[in-house]
């Protein structure tokens, strides 16, 4: 079963322990307007034309898991030396569980750890396909507000339900909250997310601060990036948000 991917990124250092290679899956069922990987929002190939780079790059191709594996294996020594491995990210990996599971099995058979980065908006049956072969999930929580989730194409009840079932099933889950200005960084939002996670028995979160590094990609795709003029959150504010979360759980990053 081929997998629709946009890119394989070597030496990923922010997607789990150690040195990792990240496979970016194409296609997503959310449409977060701040997304920094717009090329993965759609399943169709994207053409990217950068102003200061000659030529046009097409991102998106269907690739056999075995072919992906051979590229992942190039960095095996680095995974071993650093306690790293492979991270599947996207887009939404869980929309292609058939191919993803095959890829994970191949990776596991080489003794390499696999992390899946997901927003969790899929039926739990999809997770059940992946659970036996995934070492850890990076699980995004964007908001605790039903309507806000609906606005970006999500469903809070599915997200929380899946998260609690993953924990019940004994899976290792790293909860991550993207800090998005004017979306989830006000005190009220922070407190409601904090409370929600607390009620689910989550002990620790990672905060991922908004950046607009993706804006050149939107430009390259000829798209308008709604967040291109949004300034990154100041470090003082990040500290304040952290402090607020610390009332409920431990904060990393």
């Amino acid at each position, binding site marked *: 079963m081929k997998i629709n991917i946009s890119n394989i990124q070597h030496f990923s250092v922010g997607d789990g322990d150690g040195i990792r290679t990240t496979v970016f899956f194409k296609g997503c069922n959310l449409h977060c307007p701040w997304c920094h990987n717009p090329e993965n929002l759609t399943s169709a190939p994207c053409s990217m034309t950068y102003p200061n780079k000659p030529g046009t790059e097409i991102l998106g191709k269907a690739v056999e898991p075995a072919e992906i594996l051979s590229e992942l294996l*190039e960095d095996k*020594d*680095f995974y071993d030396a650093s306690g790293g491995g492979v991270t599947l990210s996207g887009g939404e990996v869980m929309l292609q569980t058939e191919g993803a599971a095959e890829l994970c099995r191949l990776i596991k058979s080489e003794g390499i750890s696999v992390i899946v*980065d997901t927003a969790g908006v899929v039926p739990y049956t999809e997770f059940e396909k992946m659970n036996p072969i995934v070492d850890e999930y990076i699980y995004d929580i964007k908001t605790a507000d039903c309507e806000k989730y609906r606005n970006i194409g999500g469903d809070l009840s599915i997200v929380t339900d899946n998260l609690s079932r993953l924990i019940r099933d004994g899976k290792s889950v790293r909860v991550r909250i993207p800090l998005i200005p004017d979306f989830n960084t006000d005190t009220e939002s922070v407190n409601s997310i904090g409370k929600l996670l607390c009620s689910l028995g989550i002990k620790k979160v990672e905060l991922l601060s908004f950046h607009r590094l993706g804006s050149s990609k939107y430009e390259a795709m000829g798209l308008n990036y709604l967040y291109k003029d949004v300034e990154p959150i100041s470090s003082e504010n990040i500290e304040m948000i952290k402090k607020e979360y610390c009332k409920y759980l431990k904060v990393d990053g």
Partner: protein
Amino acid sequence: MKLFKELNRELCEEPTGTYAPYYYRFVGYKKDLAAKPSALRANGIYSLFTESRPVILKNELIVGNRRSLFAKDVNPIVLEYSKNMVDIFKERWFDTNKDHFAPDYRHILSLGIPGLINEADRSLLRHRNDPEKCETIKSMRLTLVGFSKMIENYAVAAEEALSIDGYDKSRLKGIIDTCRALINGKPSSFKEALQLVWFCHNAFLMEGRYAMALGRIDQYLYPFYKEDIEKGAITDDEVIELLENIFIKLQDDVVNICIGGQNQQGECDVNSLSLCVLKAVGNCNVPGPNLSLRLTPNTPDEFLDECLKVIGTGLGYPAIMNDDINIAALKKYGYDDEDVYNYCMVGCIENFITGMQPPWSDDRFDTPRFFDFIFNNGISETSRTVGLDTGNLEYIKTMDDFMRTYEKQLAYGADEYFSKFNATNASLNQRFIPEPFLSCFCHDCIGRGLDINNGGAKYPSVHGAVVMGIGTVSDSLAAIEKVIFIDKEATLSELRDALNSNFEGYEELHKKLLSAPKYGNNDDFVDKYAVWFIDYLGSLFEKYHTYDGGRFYIAAAANVSSIYSGAQTNATPDGRKRGEPLSDAASPGYGRDTRGPTSTINSVSKPDYTKVACGTVVNQKYSPEMFSDGKRSKLLALIRTLFKKGGQEIQINATSREILKKAMDNPDDYRDLVVRVSGFSAFYVTLGREVQLDILNRTQHE
């Protein structure tokens, strides 16, 4: 404020008078202008040491600086005459084994100056029937006596300073005691040992030498350190303060300092003094102390991590050397094992058997220009140089033909390089410019009664041929194989026309050449040429010998020569335009390793670096967040893996705010600069200005 900062401020003050080492040297020459070369030189060095007037700075704990050579109240005619005369007698220079030397400090520390003079006396007795050797030994001895006298002058100057306001009296008394102890015997404390080393180094500077290495300072000073620490006579903070006091004086020089390594039993040589040295270099944070780490598989991760912290300050040091590879490379040249394990580096990265071979020399051998000779019947208009006329391009029918032709050009180039080396050395009668003082620091010149450059050293002189352009050449060969011989998109003649017109009018072909596989992406199609490059050039230079029968090593390092050489090199088949820099050192071409550092490392670890005895440089830049507590361990694993795979060296630079700013203004020079954040990485220069500023601001906070 830290003491070294105060000292730095003092050092920045312009001294009065004229910097006139020649004047002090000529005082000695003048004593007997008809003296034989070794006596003449020794007289000059003796007066250089004894006639100059030591200056003690207020913040010096370890005294000795070149201010003593500023002549005041000397008639300008005398100065001019002295300079003219000294110039006539000439000095050696880098090409002819003047400096880039790592003295045998262990020896002088164990004997002290009186002990070394005594060694000379015993050697005189042994060689009493050989007048020439006696002459040589006497000249060495005289310079040692002068050296001792200079230290006495420092003691006197410190005594005089006691009555001057602004000096710390107890510090001066310490200086006086230390100087007196060094005149009368061997050093008996860490401070005395360090002061002796510094007096030696400063004396070499007075002689006009540059890039004199301090070598394995954490090893030869360790016995003194250990004893003092155990006695409670000194603390680590005091040790660091003393070291800072000398490192801050090393600015405007390239003084290699080596830490770590392993002994013959393979035991790790890192000790607590290594950490003090590292911290002192990091605190001073000035270029000059060129710190090198000999990394072994059993160097503790904690120590490597400390090194990364220092690198992360933006200093870029220590450079990290793969000890196993260097030792394997050096062992091929038949050095005794115990000497090999005591190697260090001189200059930037050049491997050197500490205190046992004549001073180092090397030169650049840039390889991409030889393509021009193949394409243009042996004449390169861009570099205005001539190679072989290897005939009509139509006779080159296969990639194999092309390789053999290129090899022929390189072989001719190596002969040309060697002939220049020979001619330079022939212009200098080796016996005419003896080095009596330097010889005292090279095993076993005193014992043999021979000058360091005239058979006194245990091993003969080595020359380094620094081969440049591994990335440009590998990419060029891969592009030729792919575009010309496999895809048959153009003929060699068309390629020649494209190169000679700098790709103007050949945009399609240029695009194809650019999209051929590039070195640094873990693609064997091109990486095999890098492997060949090292194998072939290694074998080419194997056959040459230096004037005294020593060997030629090769190096894959270039400093900034890749820019100058590139400026004089025609467009190359990899798609590089005329005048653009060549690939740097042993690294892939600028911005061409696009798959991230692991792929770069997978590629650059393919060549067999045990054939590169001089050394390699692989430069990598990382944004400062890679040095944060959470991520440093990933860099550490990266380095470990590079070395496990057989890489020889890595020099990591933390991208400072200054560099990010430069990259915004000159994007072409920073094409390889990558910014990494979670789930995202991008080439910095491809980002919009606003976003670049975001990153710049992140950097400020970290």
